[in-house]
């Protein structure tokens, strides 16, 4: 039962790392896009790409939490007690990010848009960093068992947590860039294809370098994890490396859908590698899955929920993506001429102060 629950838990983590990660990554590129003028076109592609799907992408985090607190409540208590600070920061970041994005769509003054856009973009970096640091804290065995608190600061400011945080931001940016290349291609925006292709390649290279550094960090700072990664986790590490390299090559050859797929596999392998490496602990070297697992009844309830999700949610999720990618869900907003999705019109800046109209 503990194995089944762990598989389900890690499935939600991988889904969040891929879908949520790409979403955060899009925010990262939004942040890096530069001033209002220069960043206008990439931001439009980004908005267009994540607009209809961002809320659904983040439900994975909720699922991850729910599976963790139902199946491994003791671990959840220890994690939340120990990692109070980064988790609080992540929660705040999620509020700023979600509301910032939604508000940016709803207002039309350039000044307002810029404020909300900045909130959205900066929190897009803050949240994955904090969650990555949390993952690093768990993976490096800094969370004690028994619903006790570990070091409130050192647990998340340490080499492995920093590695985890940067890796989370970086993999998200890498994924997002490969997705955005594809989206830009779909929208016939050749300069933007090139724009995001360069960034995807840059992110992939950076992640490669970071992973090499990470090997040394983990060898010193997270010995159990390192031992796992170099033995039972090795095939996944190799898969991640091969797919990451393949994504680079495919990007170079302009095979965008291939790059997208290999990027997803690379990121999923990294996350899965973490899980396999810290097997069979939920909190490495302090709490095993077996010791932390909830009674069978709870796990069965989780399985029922997974069954229902497979029957109802996955098809709906697929429908959403399909409708979105076929252009049935154009960006909403009063500024859109019926000619969407053309992206070359300037942002409509309402220059005169908004006054009450007399009608209605």
């Amino acid at each position, binding site marked *: 039962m503990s194995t089944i629950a762990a598989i389900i838990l890690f499935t939600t983590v991988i889904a969040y790392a891929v879908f949520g990660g790409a979403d955060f990554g899009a925010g990262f590129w939004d942040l890096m896009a530069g001033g209002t003028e220069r960043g206008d076109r990439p931001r439009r592609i980004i908005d267009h790409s994540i607009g209809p799907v961002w*809320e659904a992408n983040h439900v994975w985090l909720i699922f991850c939490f729910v599976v963790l607190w139902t199946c491994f409540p*003791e671990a959840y208590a220890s994690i939340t007690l120990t990692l109070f600070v980064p988790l609080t920061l992540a929660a705040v970041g*999620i*509020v700023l990010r979600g509301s910032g994005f939604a508000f940016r769509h709803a207002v039309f003054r350039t000044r307002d848009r810029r404020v909300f856009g900045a909130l959205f973009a900066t929190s897009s970096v803050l949240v994955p960093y904090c969650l990555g640091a949390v993952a690093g804290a768990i993976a490096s065995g800094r969370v004690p068992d028994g619903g006790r608190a570990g070091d409130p600061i050192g647990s998340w400011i340490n080499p492995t947590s920093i590695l985890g945080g940067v890796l989370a931001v970086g993999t998200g940016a890498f994924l997002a860039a490969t997705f955005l290349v594809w989206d830009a291609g779909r929208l016939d925006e050749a300069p933007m294809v090139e724009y995001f292709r360069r960034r995807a390649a840059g992110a992939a290279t950076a992640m490669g370098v970071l992973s090499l550094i990470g090997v040394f960090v983990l060898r010193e700072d997270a010995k159990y994890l390192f031992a796992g990664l170099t033995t039972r986790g090795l095939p996944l590490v190799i898969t991640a490396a091969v797919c990451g390299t393949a994504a680079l090559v495919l990007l170079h050859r302009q095979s965008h859908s291939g790059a997208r797929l290999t990027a997803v596999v690379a990121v999923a392998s990294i996350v899965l590698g973490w899980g396999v490496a810290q097997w069979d602990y939920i909190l490495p070297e302090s709490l095993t899955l077996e010791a932390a697992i*909830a009674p069978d*009844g709870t796990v069965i309830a989780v399985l029922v929920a997974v069954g229902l999700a497979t029957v109802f949610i996955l098809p709906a999720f697929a429908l959403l993506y399909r409708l979105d990618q076929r252009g049935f*869900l154009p960006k909403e907003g009063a500024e859109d001429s019926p000619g969407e999705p053309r992206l070359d019109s300037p942002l409509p800046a309402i220059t005169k102060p908004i006054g*009450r*109209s007399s009608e209605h």
Partner: protein
Amino acid sequence: MRWLLAGILAIDPVPWARAQMAFTLAAHIILVPLGVSWALIMLIANYRGVRHGDADALVLAQRWSKYLAVTFAVGAVTGTVLSFEFGLLWPRFMGQWGEAFGIPFLFEGLFFFAEAIFVSIYIFGWRRMKPWPHFFSGVPIVICGIGGSAAVIASNAWMNDPSGFTLDQAGQIIEVDPWGVIFNDAMPLMAAHMVVAAYVVGGFMIASVYAVGMARGRRDRYHRLGFLIPFTVAAIAVPIQIGVGDRLAGWVQENQPVKFAAIALVPETASDVPETLFGRLQDDGTVSGGIAIPGMTSYMTNPSTGTATVIQGLDTVPAGDRPTTSQVNIVHWSWDVMVGIGMLLLLLSLWYGATWLFRRDMPQSRLFLLVASASGVLAVIAMEAGWVVSEVGRQPWIVYNLQRVDDAATANTGVWITFIGIVVLYAALAATTIYVLRTMSIRFKREDHHNQPVPYGPSDGGQSDP
């Protein structure tokens, strides 16, 4: 400097954790009714628009969906905060009871996921999807809203009526029966009370906005329709809500007699218990002030035995196991506020219903519009008060008769900082949400809604490129 640090580290996290949970829930619960009921209200307008070719209704539906996109997003993030807070504020509660308490959230997650998916499809699908498929993409939002709130309330009800598990000698859960957890005894009535509340509150909130517009003289068909649809939904829901609430009160009286004693302000077990409107419980156990209706509580509790009905008092459990005096007063006052506003809204609904029955039109008087303008705020106050009755009345327990709030809270002494931070953040969020909704409304007003691109147009779905 050291004493300052020592002082900060010594701050008891429990009251702050309580305050933060209460504050964030109180904020989130305002957004819930909009997510749950606005979808139905919007679909009624959408149906009218498509079925009867009513352009005003269609424009309303489209604009409502744009507002809904904003409130749904804010509700989604404030809801996510709550799932963080379960662990951040109540780790010992989650550690001990997560395997039971957490189960309904599995299903809440499913409902929310589906809701998020279809909200996206519906909101973004106006221009390119065909009218009927688009309409039906909105139906799951309504269903999932009901299911999701029922699931959350199942967990909350479980805290009032913990069941569906077996404890060992050490008090640890060794067996869980998910069905028993979800469908605990308190769940059906509590869930119904919240779901119907969502329709009451959501309906009045939306209607009150248009009532304000009409009171200011904007009496066109668009505003009339914007008022009639949500107000009718709320007016139908009010009597149902009062019926459900009455049965829930009966359940509480039987199963949580101490909470009921707090509600009815009954210090000592007695018969011929009066209904005290407001008033205060003193520390010495006497009730001062207020208006007492002799024998009314006894009579209402069981009309067959009338005023001879015995009501269990607060004194039946030790002081440490029941709400404190000030908590009792909070519960009692909140109850009176909830019931009082409920009755006022019932009168308003009856007025509307009677006028409609006899004159086939809504009441035209200015007084009606003024009260209707206030109905949204009143309904929110009633809902918050009802939630206070439920939560404060359960004190000092987080899991009724099994775990105290004090034993459940985090040991992190910095909660007071996060509390202040969250209050500032939410205040900014609330102000911005209102600002953004106002901006949208002003923009909509500037558009001549007969000239703007009609939904599904110009050439019904698919080919809208010029």
